[in-house]
């Protein structure tokens, strides 16, 4: 399979909670177009919602880029959330459940990581934060890294 699937690639602003709705709708449509099953669509949309809300609430706004990725015959969706906010001083701590610097439940980052196949977090205090996640259609999730 080559190139692009219509309606997958996009850059969406994350400036208000209305934008969170567009992010969820786009990720849902893109995942469906790439052949994600219903549970995998739901997991990815939920992860995107958590990450977009982090971008808005903690990053002061930013954007999400959606890309179609291929690995052999597997179709994937990569979502990259960028902000120029204060950054995360202690990423390991930020990824642990229950930790929050805002008013949330502290599940956003760690929870989003569990809902996707690949997760990377790059943050520089004072410069901003980039979180990239990738999930694959019809491919079993990788063995989770369980520290405990």
């Amino acid at each position, binding site marked *: 399979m080559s190139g692009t699937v219509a309606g997958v690639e996009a850059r969406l602003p994350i400036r208000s909670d209305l934008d969170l709705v567009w992010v969820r709708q786009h990720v849902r449509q893109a995942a469906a177009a790439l052949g994600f099953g219903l549970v995998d669509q*739901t997991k990815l*949309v939920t992860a995107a919602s958590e990450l977009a809300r982090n971008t808005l609430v903690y990053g002061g706004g930013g954007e999400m880029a959606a890309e179609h990725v291929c690995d052999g015959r597997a179709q994937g969706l990569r979502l990259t959330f960028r902000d120029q906010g204060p950054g995360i001083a202690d990423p390991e701590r930020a990824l642990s459940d229950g930790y929050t610097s805002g008013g949330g439940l502290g599940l956003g980052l760690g929870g989003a990581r569990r809902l996707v196949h690949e997760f990377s977090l790059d943050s520089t205090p004072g410069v901003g934060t980039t979180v990239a996640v990738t999930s694959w259609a019809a491919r079993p999730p990788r063995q989770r890294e369980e520290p405990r």
Partner: protein
Amino acid sequence: MNHDLSLSGTAHVPVLRLGDVLLITLQGDLHDGTAEQLQQDIAEQIVRNRVTGVVIDISGVEIVDSFLGRVLAEIAASSRLLAARTVVAGMRPAVAITLVELGLSLPGLRTALNTEAALELLAMTTPGGPRREPR
């Protein structure tokens, strides 16, 4: 019914009253502000109408993230303080699987498979009514 909840930050979700119970049907993609407004509307209507139960039908909701999950849990908690019980009805299987993986299993939230079962559950546990343990 309201079809464009996502388009307006101040949209209200319709809250219907059926006897002693408030029935709320959530549809589609809910705006954060709409969800928070709903929490206030339910609390006010419980007191105004002296209802004893709240049923929230989420069968039309495609995703519940930690924000909406928290709002549902807070609606249940504030309703309880106002002497009403809350049942969340009709959660989709994919939503349940995702919530658990997210880490939000909402242990304090009463659930039922559909609105009818939710109303039965409330009738069973109504003070003064026949008191049986829910299955």
